[in-house]
């Protein structure tokens, strides 16, 4: 394969990481917690689309929308039931709860769908695009990138131009001060979980389409990689998550292609460690301002 196609596949993988990393980073920024169940929401999204399309024979569009709706609701429900009662608890308590939620979702999927991998329905008919003899582009990679770019633009506009977006920025900086402005902090946190989870559903779709198979643990590894991406970019920072995700995907794919498949994950984590040694706040993370 040519360098260009390796790069494009890396960008496509990175787009997927970026979509997931956005959920981690937004929730961290606003609720100041690591939602380790976020990766499993991807899996729930993929299984919902699988059930809707393969079992219930719904159209691709309806199956995708169903996956997004289920994940959005799931995100909001997880926050309400598992995390909201712990708003004042120690970060460790919240972290352990998040890990519990993650196991819960995995076990639930195991119970319903069994441990065998399921073949993900091909919701679209992808024809590879042949540019010339050496350069054949996979159209699903192009779609993944295109949709991710659209989502990022929309999200950036939403956060910077709408009142709800501003409220999110305010809450992420100072919950108490945001409340004094009349911002409903609980509602803002719910909206953040909803957005993050709907993006995870989209990532679940791309994951299913790219790899063709899904299982109860499908979300675990991309979840961890996306978390790494969020930290790489600077946890809590939205452009950072986008950059971190894309960088990670490219590094992973190029390592696989030119160094070694087995070592690619090690290289990814080595990059993280080096970046954090040089810049502990991540690539785009801001220094926390000292309170006067």
């Amino acid at each position: 394969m040519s360098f260009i196609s390796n790069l494009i596949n890396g960008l496509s993988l990175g787009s997927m990481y970026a979509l997931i990393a956005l959920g981690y980073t937004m929730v961290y920024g606003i609720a100041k917690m690591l939602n380790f169940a976020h990766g499993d929401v991807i899996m729930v999204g993929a299984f919902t689309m699988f059930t809707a399309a393969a079992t219930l024979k719904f159209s691709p569009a309806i199956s995708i929308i169903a996956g997004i709706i289920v994940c959005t609701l799931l995100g909001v429900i997880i926050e309400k039931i598992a995390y909201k009662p712990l708003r004042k608890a120690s970060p460790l308590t919240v972290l352990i709860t998040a890990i519990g939620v993650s196991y819960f979702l995995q076990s639930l999927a195991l119970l319903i769908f069994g441990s065998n991998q399921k073949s993900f329905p091909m919701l679209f008919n992808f024809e590879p695009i042949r540019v010339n003899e050496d350069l054949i582009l996979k159209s699903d990679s192009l779609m993944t990138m295109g949709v991710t770019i659209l989502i990022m633009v929309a999200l950036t506009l939403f956060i910077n131009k709408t009142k709800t977006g501003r409220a999110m920025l305010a809450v992420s900086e100072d919950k108490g001060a945001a409340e004094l402005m009349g911002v409903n902090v609980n509602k803002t946190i719910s909206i953040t979980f909803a957005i993050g989870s709907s993006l995870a559903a989209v990532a679940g779709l791309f994951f299913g389409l790219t790899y063709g198979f899904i299982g109860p643990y499908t979300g675990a590894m991309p979840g961890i990689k996306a978390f790494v991406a969020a930290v790489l970019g600077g946890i809590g920072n939205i452009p950072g998550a986008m950059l971190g995700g894309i960088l990670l995907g490219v590094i992973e794919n190029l390592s696989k292609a030119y160094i070694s498949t087995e070592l690619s994950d090690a290289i990814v984590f080595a990059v993280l460690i080096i970046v954090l040694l040089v810049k502990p706040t991540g690539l785009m993370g801001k220094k926390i301002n000292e309170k006067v």
Partner: protein
Amino acid sequence: MAMLRVENLEVFYGVIRAIKGVSFEVNEGEVIALIGANGAGKTTILHTITGLIQPHAGKIEFEGHDLVKTPAYKIVQMGMAHVPEGRRIFQQLTVLENLRLGAFTRKSNSEIQASLKRVYRSFPRLEERKNQVAGTLSGGEQQMLAMGRALMSDPKIILMDEPSKGISPLIVMEIFNMIREISSGGTTVLLVEQNAKKALEISNRAYVLETGKIALEGNAEELMNNENVKKAYLGE
């Protein structure tokens, strides 16, 4: 009837009783000073009024509404603004974005624009720096921004927590003039200060808080001439 009435307020931090049965009133149009030393409980009282802290017991009534049961984010809409201790402006947002957040609960764009004009007229520096990231403002400018942000909600009453803290004398003058101006514009003011002299100069009545209790109350002139107050708070 008082605009704001606090009755037998009790606030605990864990097992520590920080506010021990405090009662006071603010009438419409007044400037009320709440003075006291470090740790007396002034900030705790303001936070409890605006709903950031839940009291253990006691009543807080604003224009007849029970504030204890009202979530913090709804209190602004009722016409109460709070300039918190340490200013707590949104450092990563611009001056204008901060001011807009101050008007978060308001719907009418033309009214918001009118308030913005008023704030800029009172604090021309904020207009000059409207696109500057707020974290890079000087301490005095940040205090002006915190006050401007509170005014953007067009409040009936404004609670201010030590607006003079850590600010150079010249700017302190400017800020106290602003408080006077806010008051003469018809907004009621509850002012928390350690700078007792300045606070008493611009207020109608005052309460002196000592370790979670009201130790003294009266009109500002009386208190300024009170021997105990002179010794303990006016440094005379």
